[in-house]
């Protein structure tokens, strides 16, 4: 019955890991046409499904068993919830009569995931299943996307019930608003027309709603520069003429200056995270703010909004595009150009010894990639360097853990991307710390011959934490040096993957070329300068125009 429902929902692939409580479910998979990717840790199943969902726009589906199987999903679910990724997670539960008795492998997963799912269900009987499954898919993939979990007691898998599946469903308390309020849209048009120093500030909402092309037309027609949050990268081409980069803590100087000096911010599909706004009281003091978002609760949550528009970002931008005329922004764009020339993103500190710079590696990866390349990053310095130096040219092509900042996300997410987009090149940019959080998935990529380049930025430390110790804790490097890391080349080879090592610029370029030319997974261990830090930087809770620059340009 579950597989039949998945088929109705158009699911082609699920990610999972079996166990006692889902034995009946896995038994039906044995001779079903539905594809299943066996991972080596349930956390990887969620992240892979998350990567798959980001690339395809369809909900990622995960199977896991009760108890430890279900609790292993938790980080992945929280991650998807923070980044609004549609997932449907199906967990087995102990048989109904044992629920509440602390039975073997019992965990209250609906209770545990209550605050990190968009909605969840504990199924009581098989009759409820069709209704719950169709609601779950509908809730996960509509409105503001998010993960939905369905917990199914073992005995329910074995029950028979009439299967009447309807992919359309009506839920009384759930009616997302898609069309923006006409009056508010007119006010926005007027505000944009009157602005002299406008910026568009876009985020993940642009990507989820498929608004990239309309955004581009709008920016170019009205001549408004574009700033994208970490989650928004790719919604406007990273090498596009009006692109100012990412704002906030490791944003470009230009983006931060532009937000500070702007007289109008057109915020679309963003949530004004503290990593973006810095000290709230000083954020964008000169600007009127238009905020377009599908989730009314995001509007006015952190920042006071002048023109709120609740709706689907793409639909609202289409309305705006119809009504907008070219703006008077020439002078403003000149000012921005001056900042851009004066403050490019630094490419690394001066380097007499000739050690390999992580920024160089990312720039080479970017230079040698085509515009359809999908990048999945882990979390840390390498993530920020990727955001700064990799020119993401298309939406859904930069997968990163934005809201939760989950080390271990990148590698499984790259697996999901690989399976979602068989034609595109996939690169996982990871760190020596993060990679070890899901390194076991080397077995999955080797076993399934998944073609990808794993670019390991090996700085011998938990670099991002070390950077904070460097700057804010008097260089007291408490537990951030990764002694005892394995030889990553040997580890990859032991799993049966190809692996290369690069310690100089020349080796780095050659290794990337070789990896890109090779079918199947290739790991490159880039041994980089361990002292390198990410700049520019704004200290936490400081005004975003108070920027620590560093390094050479």
């Amino acid at each position: 019955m579950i597989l039949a429902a998945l088929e109705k929902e158009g699911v082609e692939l699920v990610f999972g890991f079996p166990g006692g409580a889902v034995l009946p479910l896995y038994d039906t998979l044995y001779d079903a046409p539905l594809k299943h990717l066996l991972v080596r840790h349930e956390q990887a199943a969620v992240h892979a499904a998350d990567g798959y969902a980001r690339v395809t726009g369809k909900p990622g589906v995960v199977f896991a068993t009760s108890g430890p199987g279900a609790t292993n999903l938790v980080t992945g679910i929280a991650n998807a919830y923070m980044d609004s990724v549609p997932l449907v997670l199906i967990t087995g539960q102990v048989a109904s009569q044992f629920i509440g008795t602390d039975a073997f492998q019992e965990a209250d997963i609906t209770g545990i995931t209550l605050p990190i799912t968009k909605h969840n269900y504990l199924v009581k009987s098989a009759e409820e299943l069709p209704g719950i499954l169709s609601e779950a898919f509908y809730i996960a993939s509509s409105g503001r996307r998010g993960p939905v979990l369905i917990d199914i007691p073992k005995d329910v898998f074995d029950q028979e019930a009439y299967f009447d599946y309807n992919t359309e469903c009506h839920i009384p308390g759930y009616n997302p608003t898609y069309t923006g309020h006409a009056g508010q849209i007119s006010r926005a048009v007027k505000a944009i027309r009157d602005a002299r120093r406008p910026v568009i500030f876009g985020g993940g909402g642009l990507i989820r709603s498929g608004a990239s092309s309309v955004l581009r037309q709008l920016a170019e027609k009205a001549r408004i520069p574009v700033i994208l949050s970490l989650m928004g990268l790719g919604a406007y081409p990273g090498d596009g003429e009006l692109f100012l980069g990412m704002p906030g803590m490791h944003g470009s100087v230009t983006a931060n200056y532009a937000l500070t000096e702007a007289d109008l911010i057109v915020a679309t599909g963003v949530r004004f995270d503290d990593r973006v706004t810095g000290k709230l009281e000083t954020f964008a003091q000169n600007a009127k703010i238009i905020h377009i978002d599908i989730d009314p609760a995001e509007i006015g949550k952190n920042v006071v909004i002048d023109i709120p528009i609740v709706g689907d970002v793409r639909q609202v931008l289409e309305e705006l595009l119809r009504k907008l005329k070219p703006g008077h922004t020439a002078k403003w764009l000149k000012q921005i150009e001056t900042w851009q020339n004066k403050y490019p993103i630094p490419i690394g500190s001066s380097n007499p010894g000739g050690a390999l710079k992580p920024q160089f590696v990312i720039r080479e990866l970017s230079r040698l990639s085509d515009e359809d390349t999908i990048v999945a990053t882990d979390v840390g310095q390498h993530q920020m360097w990727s955001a700064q130096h990799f020119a993401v040219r298309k939406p859904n092509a930069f997968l990163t853990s934005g809201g939760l900042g989950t080390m271990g996300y990148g590698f499984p997410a790259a697996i999901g991307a690989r399976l979602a987009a068989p034609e595109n090149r996939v690169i996982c940019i990871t760190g020596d710390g993060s990679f070890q959080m899901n390194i076991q998935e080397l077995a999955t990529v080797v076993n399934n011959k998944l073609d990808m380049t794993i670019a390991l930025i090996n700085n011998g430390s938990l670099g991002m934490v070390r950077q904070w110790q460097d700057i804010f804790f008097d260089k007291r490097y408490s537990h951030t040096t990764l002694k005892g890391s394995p030889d990553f080349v040997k580890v990859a080879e032991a799993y049966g993957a190809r692996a290369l090592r690069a310690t100089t610029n020349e080796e780095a370029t050659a290794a990337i070329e070789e990896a890109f030319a090779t079918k199947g997974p290739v790991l490159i261990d880039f041994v980089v300068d361990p002292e390198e830090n990410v700049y520019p930087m704004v200290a936490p809770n400081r005004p975003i125009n108070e920027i620590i620059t560093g390094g050479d340009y």
Partner: protein
Amino acid sequence: MKHILAILVENKPGALTRISGLFSRRGFNIDNIAVGETITPGIARMTITVEGSETVIEQVIKQLHKLVNVIKVSNLSNEPAVTRELMLIKVRAETGSRSDIQQIVETFRGKVVDVSPDSMIIEVTGNDDKLEAIKLLLDNFGIKEIVRTGKVALLRGSRVTREA
């Protein structure tokens, strides 16, 4: 400022946990909660009294709306509404003080619902001010225990808070 929210919610397992969990998770302060059936089967009504500024309350309401089981949220504090709460008070009552207590109870249109050799239980219904006032007066005799239902409220006039 205190706000009284009327929340219509699908009476599904976990629905109340979702709502109370939301309040604690987001740091909203609940003063009290009352829950009960409505005239529509399957739909319960919660009345929640919550403390906070206008912006906080706006955020509370929006977050409540995001819960799939929540059908409607109204802020009754901005409208004329009848608000009531029921309180039971167990007060020390030796034979000598009983008639004094009786008199207070009558003034507040309360009821004596239980009498034992050294105590009485008083039932009284009203708004905050009234309940506080009787509490203060009975305190002179020695209050042993209090229990309150939490506030419930209805809009005045013919308007109703309904699911559609």
